[in-house]
């Protein structure tokens, strides 16, 4: 399905698109486009806010369910735990490292910041299920990918943020321990591939590269999203 998403749609169409976005009926690429429109058009963002306000009373129909008692502890550990605090203190340096990496184009710096961000975001325990999923995000980046691992096949799908700028590409990397980042290809909306052999705890990262990918098969641009699958 393709929604008539553009900046030139009529007011009525824009209002319907906002409603469809808030209802959640759009598919992932159209959702991403609507979010992009909301970032660039305050009027469209206001339409979304109006529909959110109008529809949110529907939630009264949902029966509350009390979560497991340890869940708040897990969230607190993730946000404020000893390890979380440690990584949070590192984060400002990481941002700096990210910009240094962007300037110097050193893959090692990019890989380091990926690992720091990924570890910070993903040390909550895994859940035993055959199909694993991970959210790839990075601090300061609106771009977001959802990765799924199913029987050695990885699918990465962009779920938020803008597509690459003209003349740029998003490139997916496998970071396995101390090994140099391995390019898994360019992600244009969605990418499916067989996962190369990797150790548990490997990280998937997406960088913003020159069109066609990082020169010499190495990451040269900023890390815009990263994450890892919870270890089973």
């Amino acid at each position: 399905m393709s929604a008539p998403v553009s900046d030139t749609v009529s007011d009525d169409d824009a209002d319907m698109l906002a409603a469809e976005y808030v209802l959640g009926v759009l598919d992932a690429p159209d959702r991403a486009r609507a979010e992009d429109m909301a970032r660039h058009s305050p009027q469209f963002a206001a339409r979304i806010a109006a529909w959110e306000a109008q529809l949110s009373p529907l939630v009264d129909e949902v029966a509350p369910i009390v979560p497991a008692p340890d869940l708040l502890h897990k969230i607190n550990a993730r946000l404020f735990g000893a390890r979380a605090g440690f990584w949070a203190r590192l984060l400002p340096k990481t941002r700096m490292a990210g910009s240094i990496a962007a300037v110097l184009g050193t893959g090692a710096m990019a890989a380091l910041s990926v690992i720091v961000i990924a570890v910070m975001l993903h040390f909550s325990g895994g859940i035993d299920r055959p199909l694993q999923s991970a959210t790839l995000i990075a601090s300061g980046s609106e771009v977001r990918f959802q990765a799924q691992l199913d029987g050695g096949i990885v699918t990465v799908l962009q779920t938020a943020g803008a597509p690459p700028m003209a003349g740029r590409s998003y490139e997916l990397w496998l970071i396995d321990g101390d090994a140099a980042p391995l390019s898994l290809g360019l992600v244009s909306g969605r990418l499916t591939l067989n996962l190369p052999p990797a150790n548990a705890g490997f990280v998937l990262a997406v960088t913003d590269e020159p069109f066609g990918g990082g020169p010499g098969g190495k990451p040269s641009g900023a890390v815009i999203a990263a994450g890892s699958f919870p270890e089973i």
Partner: protein
Amino acid sequence: MNTIDLNALLIRIAAQDRAAFSAFYSAAAPKLFGLLIRIMGNRAEAEDALQEVFTRIWLRAARFDPDRGGAMAWAVTIARNHAIDLIRARRPLGDEVDLDSAADPAPRAETQLIAQGEAGRIQNCLSRLDPAVARAIRGAYLSGHSYADLAKAANVPLNTLRTWLRRGLISLKDCMQ
């Protein structure tokens, strides 16, 4: 649950107040968890999603603007957006849509009776729509069904469903104004 209290808690969370965060969690987590279970379809994924949602609530609290809506509606938006992103990312991988669960029940009579204020208004307006369209709007908002899911459940072409739903949304908006 008092809306004003939740707004005040969220403003304190923006100032890094962890006690306020715990209080907000106690008040809001059951509703958000119920919503996430409904959209994700299973408890394990809903728990993962709830952790992410509260992480975002902490990190984004400073962006909350009480003039633009209540704290609960703000948190519901974060939860729904995250859950819908997750299921839109997984469905193309071959997960079968459960057609039975795609047919959302209308709220029970007692729920309708106790619905008041804003909730009463939207229920009243939905009840004036074609029941199939009202069901589709509820199914989309509360269970995260996509156009493709809804068309499959109603056994109509996607574009037909879309036309119905858009018409329903226009009537709903007119009724709510």
